[in-house]
């Protein structure tokens, strides 16, 4: 590989543009795992939620012939899936992790079930005339050199996700609900004792989690690509869970880690152009997360040994 070529392709506006493209679904996955997790209700079904939402976005926009209604249907699907976690773990006393595992395996097969039902094809939705969401050229900004190329011209979901990021940040750090969500996650007894309705707070967190996860899923089939193919999320949800696990309750760390990871992923995509063994290159992001988790766990263990935690 020619190093100069490599750097030439990395240090361009289009590369930054690519990073953002790659980052959107990952940010959704991280936020989805994060919002549920800090309320004390782990959502392991992010992958499944994104997968079902991705499919329902395609089917919904095909049925209604409206990209926006398709997006709405996808979001509703995500919320329903997240509420399943609430139903089974909070009402029926199942372990939320097990519920998550079950929902993920369910989504894997059930998405194919639905796909086949409506396309008679188990691999892809290419035969359906589904809609995609428009891109947005931001007036004035789009004409600014460099910045305009990076910021303008993305799919509308990208801007929605940025908005969601800000809203979730404000919600968690600045509103009463945010304080209650954190309290529910840290000590539900204490929260309950001052009248915080822990179950309701968690259900709200799960709804947000489902919504933002679904947004990520819809982005994949209504922006990033324009069709649904089986297993299209390919582990993004799991990466979100891994990142949220590393970030703990810190929102800034969550976003920074996700962005770092997106850069990794984007660089990987460039590597693939260079005739390197693609199977191994594809594992780089996972190795990166693994290394991240190992470093994180080792430092946590050290801290705990020194008694800085607890």
């Amino acid at each position, binding site marked *: 590989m020619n190093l100069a070529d490599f750097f030439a392709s990395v240090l361009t506006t289009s590369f930054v543009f690519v990073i953002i493209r790659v980052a959107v679904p990952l940010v959704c996955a991280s936020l989805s795992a994060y919002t549920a997790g800090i309320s004390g209700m782990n959502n392991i079904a992010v992958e499944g939620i994104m997968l079902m939402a991705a499919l329902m976005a395609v089917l919904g926009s095909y049925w209604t012939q409206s990209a926006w209604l398709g997006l709405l249907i996808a979001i509703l699907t995500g919320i329903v899936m997240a509420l399943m976690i609430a139903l089974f773990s909070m009402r029926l006393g199942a372990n939320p992790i*097990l519920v998550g595992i*079950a929902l993920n*395996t*369910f989504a894997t097969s*059930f998405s194919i079930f639905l796909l086949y039902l409506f396309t008679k094809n188990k691999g892809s939705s290419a035969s359906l005339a589904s809609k995609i969401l428009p891109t947005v050229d931001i007036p004035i900004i789009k004409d600014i050199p460099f910045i305009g190329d990076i910021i303008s011209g993305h799919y509308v979901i990208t801007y929605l996700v940025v908005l969601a990021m800000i809203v979730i940040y404000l919600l968690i750090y600045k509103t009463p609900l945010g304080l209650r969500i954190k309290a529910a996650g840290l000590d539900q007894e204490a929260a309950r004792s001052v009248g915080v309705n822990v179950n309701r707070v968690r259900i709200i967190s799960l709804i947000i989690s489902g919504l933002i996860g679904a947004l990520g899923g819809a982005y994949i089939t209504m922006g990033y690509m324009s069709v649904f193919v089986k297993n299209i999320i390919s582990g993004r949800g*799991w990466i979100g869970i891994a990142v949220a696990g590393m970030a703990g309750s810190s929102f800034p760390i969550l976003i920074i880690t996700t962005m770092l990871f997106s850069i990794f992923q984007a660089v990987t995509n460039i590597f693939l152009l260079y005739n390197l063994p693609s199977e191994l290159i594809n*594992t780089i992001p996972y190795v990166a997360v693994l290394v991240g*988790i190992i470093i994180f*766990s080792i430092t946590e263990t050290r801290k705990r040994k020194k008694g800085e935690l607890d």
Partner: protein
Amino acid sequence: MTKKKTKKISLTNEFVFEIVKTLISILIALGLTFVVIVLLSDNPIELFTKLLTAPVTKVRYFGNVIEMMIPIAFSGLAVSLLFRTGLFNLGIEGIYFIGGVVTAAVACTAIDSYVLHPILSILIPAIVGGLLMLIPGFLKAKFNANELVVSLMLNSIYLGLGLFIIKNYLRGIDTSAIASPAFQETAMLDYIIPNTRITISFFLLLIAVFLVYLLLYKTRLGYSIRMTGTNMKFALYSGMNAFTLFMLVHFISGFLGGIGTSVELLSLYGRFTWIVLPGLGFNGALMAMLGRNNPVGVLISAFFISYLAKGAEVMALGSDVPVEIMAIIQAVLVLLVSSQYFLRKWRERQLLKEGTANELS
């Protein structure tokens, strides 16, 4: 000493209650499936009958049920040991893939013995599986790294690594697909029942179930597994060594996974052809949940699910209902069975009734 009580079958007995609960869960799952079939098909009764009875209509079909059961029962056993210890590790999925690659490597090597070759082709992947599971095991035991996330990352890594090995070092030249060369005939397991593809692996499974049962309920290791799984702090306080325990459990689990994948390939495949994760490990997690992490329960669950899966497959032939309808049955079942509070109120009422009845008598 009081007179020996006659054992009454009653809901207040935990075991009986669990069985009743499972049966009701099955009824609900099947009921829901029936509704879906009614919505999708013109002849729902016929299809539903097929779903339930097809596997017993032909020896070959029933053989298929057993064939489908074996790999998910092995992975179910492997996962159940982890779950039982309180470890949410889904790494068996990756072990099935990379273990399959190892199986291919051994099975493609020329070893001129009908005894030694299969033994090595099972044993080596089993050992490799056990050793590879030590990675998440070590990270968990030493650094408390989240085993769920670590195992999922490893699954994706093993997939890439396995494909890389197959493509570059173990590529079959007689096929255009990405696959290994055909296994040596000496490595393959023989069919032992006419009209089926059931091999010695069936007996290996029964032995594994028995050994895991002994391990869990009769040995010191099993005792510490159960105690650690119910209360980790308690186990630590009691002086049990979490590090050794986690390492051992992970190794045994990976070992079982290695056997599961190798007997699957050596019985049914003849060459390594997977290009994505086979899903058998994830299914094992569902079997573990359905079987409540009890080895016999896992075996029964695996049989039951395979039975329905075969029924669904036959039903799907020439109908509008795809075989993936199994996803609905499976998800509903697993969710209901995992729900501790499901039917609990009902049981409490029974308990109360019995309590007052006892007081009166």
